[in-house]
């Protein structure tokens, strides 16, 4: 469904060239979950932005991204607008900065459906309420009229997830969706994502710096460092037999109950 081959992203500043992503290749089938693990600056977020066509204009992109037969890197801005939010959507790390503080939650969510599926306001509202219910928001009707600051962090992240899933995308990108949350709330969000993936049969690319979180959700893991993939393996294999020294160090930094 998604095929990325030899993707390289570079930025040039004066004479220096920064290779943010270097020769990245992977494939993803429908319903699969891929985890990308790495430190800050390892190119995880750049990869996701490339998949959404949101890279800065001065980025030099090479390689190929094919998503359901479409070459994503050759899309015009107009074509992108039909893909973003409808076929590929994204959950951002910090829900407070990703939601518009001036608009009610209802306005922001309903807009998505009106734009992509040309639904009437009433029909869009009904779908939105249904979706908020699916992400386990207790009183969806009152939430629609509230502003983002009136919700807690966990609630906002649920709203972000609802917004991303409104058009039933086939590919969901999640950029550290649990990093800004408390541990018990993060566990809830992961359980929710798992459940929604089972219902909607979508593919997820889940980016995190926390191997533990990735292990709960993903079948495959890529370990990235300075723009390169150091190791790619099935999750269970990676934790049993890490190959690369860097992966071993990442695993050693994790807490184990038996230690």
């Amino acid at each position, binding site marked *: 469904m998604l095929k990325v081959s030899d993707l390289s992203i570079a930025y040039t500043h004066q004479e220096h060239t920064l290779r943010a992503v270097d020769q990245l290749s992977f494939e993803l089938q429908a319903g699969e979950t891929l985890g990308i693990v790495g*430190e800050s600056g390892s190119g995880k977020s750049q990869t996701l932005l490339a998949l959404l066509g949101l890279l800065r204009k001065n980025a030099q992109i090479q390689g190929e991204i094919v998503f359901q037969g479409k070459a994503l890197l050759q899309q015009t801005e107009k074509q992108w607008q039909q893909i973003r939010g409808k076929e590929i959507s994204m959950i951002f790390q910090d829900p407070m900065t990703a939601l518009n503080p001036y608009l009610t939650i209802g306005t922001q969510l309903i807009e998505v459906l009106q734009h992509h599926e040309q639904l009437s306001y009433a029909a869009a509202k009904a779908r939105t309420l249904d979706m908020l219910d699916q992400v386990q928001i207790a009183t969806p009707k009152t939430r629609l009229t509230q502003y983002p600051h009136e919700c807690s962090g*966990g609630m906002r992240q649920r709203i972000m997830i609802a917004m991303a899933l409104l058009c039933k995308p086939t590919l969901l990108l999640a950029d550290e969706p649990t990093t800004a949350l408390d541990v*018990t*709330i993060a566990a809830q969000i992961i359980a929710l994502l798992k459940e929604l993936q089972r219902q909607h049969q979508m593919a997820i690319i889940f980016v995190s710096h926390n191997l533990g979180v990735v*292990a709960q959700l993903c079948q495959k893991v890529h370990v990235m460092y300075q723009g390169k993939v150091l190791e790619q393996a099935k*999750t*269970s294999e990676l934790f049993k037999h890490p190959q690369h020294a860097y992966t071993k160090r990442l695993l050693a*930094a*994790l*807490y184990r109950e038996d230690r």
Partner: protein
Amino acid sequence: MSLRVQSLNIYYPMQKQHMFAKETYMHAVKDLSFSVETGQTLGIVGESGCGKSSVARALLGLQPHLTGEIWWHQHALHDCSDQQWMPLRRDIQMIFQDPLASLDPRFTIEQCIQEPLNALYPELTQIQKQHRVEKMMQRVGLSPELKHRYPHEFSGGQCQRVGIARALIVEPKLLICDEPVSALDVLIQAQIIQLLKELQQALNLTMIFISHDLNVIGQISNQIMVMYLGRLMEWADKTTLQTQAKHPYTQALWNAIPNPFQPQRKTCTLLYGEIPSILTPPSGCVFHTRCPYVMPQCKISPPSYVSLSSTQKTACYLITQDK
């Protein structure tokens, strides 16, 4: 017993509704007692809004509205004047959460690290101070050649090392770390924790380590205190808390840590719902709104603390029932 806190209550004044309204207070920390031995580490863990940072501020005398007693050796920290605090600041220092925000962007690293010396050891000469700064930089793993650089030239991990150097330069005996690693990458976190452990051994530091991450707390603490909405839920030494946590909230916190080595483990006590607002705390046991084992009496009156052994204390009706 080097640090002893006795029934500490912390309040925050609320904004008045109108000019003649009565002053109202939010009760941020309620009836908290604990003590730490010299050279030991007490970990305080809890979710946002549980009062852990308020406790840290209270220990530094930065919290104006409090009742209860805080004893550091024979000094009563709860009613020290600003002047009495000055000599005590040599003993008690703090490391902050966001390393970059806690450093002055217009100071070089040398000035940043030297500043506490200027304030607390004015009797030292400039050369002695510089010598101590260089020694301290080496100690925290920074090359002294970097001393003329500015904070923005450093990575997050390096900035946190500067923060540690700055706190330790006055040779404190009590170090309070308020989420020192939560802004850092996993590998850097492990390095900083290792560094703090080594320094603690070398300098015989007493530490209070605050974090929302039991994973991090478990790596460094001797005793762990679990807080929820300003109340102590469970206090125990590390191994007891890991193997036989009694309070449902502690168990839920452990379960919420993803364990990659057993990813399919059943998360049976996954908590539902959100943390209630501290402005309107639930009646009875504050945890009852999310507790999987909630009973009618939990909603009426809060359970009292029960000592299960010399190293474990908790407040839950489940335990008093069993006895």
